[in-house]
């Protein structure tokens, strides 16, 4: 691992003052320490933020507020989260392993780096890791890669389950830097790779996530996160569906839907949401509503199964949710 300067500030202001270009914030360390060992991330400065007061899981009339340093396992076990935002608890519970969930923070999860094997292997070209070197995944083994939001420069899948559920629920991210605080929608927080896949989000150098707010809604309590993967546990998604529905009797009044495992960022599906609005919860309606889910997809040589698997994942999530009503 390369040398870095290391600090452990106790105040947020102190932390963002110490941070700048070439700085990595250390929270749970499950991504950062791994990628520093692999020489994929080589920050000149590491700022340990674990002593900052960025904790708390609070429910109020605006919604659910989660401090950036809350750990995945604690949020998954929170009674309010499980009752009012079940898809968040499920997405967390289906992520990683128990040990990693005990370590990894919510802020860090949103910044989790892709599991693309070429990104993680410094001996291969990767435009995300080293801009301009090319993309080894395009002609390499790309079974787990993205089909939506890809570009000729990058096809890396966004790895987070949590972010998929949070994007479906219209979550906002709170940020702080030396220039002050700002709040951005999580959907807009993430950037598509385009010709600059090294730019993954709107964070400025040294800017820090302090927490998130998931708005109160009529649909979050009726929600499910379904994850399809090669192993039953401890594996990233091939496809996943975060589905929340507001019911009026047997009719879908409105739906919020996002997909994981398929996009270069958590993939909201507004067309599917619209196709379900005002319709009865029947198998025919589900089948027809998800027809457009993979529109615009660019399957790669090894992941041609993903568009169909995505549609089936969505239908099953909708069915599970309708049956549990």
């Amino acid at each position, binding site marked *: *691992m*390369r*040398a*870095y*300067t*290391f600090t*452990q500030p106790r105040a947020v202001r102190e932390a963002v003052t110490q941070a700048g270009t070439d700085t990595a914030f*250390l929270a749970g*360390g*499950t991504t950062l*320490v*791994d990628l*520093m*060992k*692999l020489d994929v991330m080589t920050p000149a400065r*590491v700022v*340990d933020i*674990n002593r900052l007061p960025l904790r708390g899981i609070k429910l109020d009339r605006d919604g659910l507020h989660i401090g950036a340093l809350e750990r995945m*396992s604690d949020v998954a076990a929170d009674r309010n989260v499980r009752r009012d935002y079940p898809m968040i608890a499920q997405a967390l519970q289906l992520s*990683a*392993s*128990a*040990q*990693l969930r*005990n*370590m990894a923070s919510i802020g860090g999860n949103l910044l989790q780096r892709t599991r693309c094997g070429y990104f993680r292997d410094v001996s291969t070209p990767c435009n995300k890791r080293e801009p301009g070197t090319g993309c080894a995944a395009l002609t390499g083994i790309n079974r787990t890669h993205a089909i939506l939001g890809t570009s000729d420069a990058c096809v890396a899948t966004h790895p987070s389950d949590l972010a998929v559920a949070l994007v479906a629920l219209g979550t906002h991210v709170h940020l702080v830097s030396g220039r002050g605080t700002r709040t951005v929608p999580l959907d807009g927080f993430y950037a598509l790779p385009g010709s600059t896949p090294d730019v993954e989000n709107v964070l400025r150098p040294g800017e820090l996530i302090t927490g998130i707010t998931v708005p109160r809604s009529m649909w979050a309590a009726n929600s499910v996160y379904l994850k399809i993967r090669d*192993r*039953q*546990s*401890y594996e990233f998604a091939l496809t996943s569906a975060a589905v929340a529905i507001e019911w009026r009797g047997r009719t879908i009044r409105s739906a919020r839907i996002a997909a994981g495992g398929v996009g270069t960022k958590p993939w909201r599906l507004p067309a599917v949401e619209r196709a379900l609005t005002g319709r009865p919860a029947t198998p025919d309606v589900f089948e027809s509503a998800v027809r457009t889910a993979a529109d615009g997809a660019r399957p790669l040589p090894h992941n041609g199964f993903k568009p169909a698997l995505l549609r089936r994942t969505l239908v099953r999530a909708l069915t599970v949710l309708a049956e549990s009503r």
Partner: protein
Amino acid sequence: MNPSDDAGRSGVSRRSVLGGGAAVAVAVPLAAGGAQAAPAAEAASVEPVTVKVTVNGEPVTVRVDPRVTLLDTLREELALTGTKKGCDRGQCGACTVHVDGRRVLSCLTLAVTVDKREVTTIEGLARGDRLHPMQQAFIERDGLQCGFCTPGQVMSAVGMVQEGHARSDDEIRERMSGNICRCGCYPSIVAAISDAQKVMR
């Protein structure tokens, strides 16, 4: 004769040969990555950090390079080699220890972040000669073959039971999925945990 008989008779175990257990305070900063250390000139430019940590009930002070993991500190500085280095990438669970009572991966934990915290390793589980119920159950149920993953399996299993999530075999399998056993002892591991959680309650 098995190795523990040998150790008992001679009064020498691998651990005591290696240097004395958790109470020893070591002042030599360990370069990050253990054997695959950074070049010496680069390592020397990093300022060591003093860490006061309780390991298996004993207060310990170590000076560590801020790049060094808890795993390497336990094994190389404190001679607590029960915690195993498997993948060293957070994927296999062999390095599982408890920090402040929670099961975590010591290979992805920087030693500098456990200052003023309590670490428990596999060496801290038994009470004298009396094995922890989980260790005993792994022996009785043959929950191991080569044994390399076992310290991590046991620490993870104890953590899971303390979290209150070992009520069914399905739940045990799901919540133990972060501990890989390449000998494939999974059925016996599940049986051992199922036995032990009844005793631990």
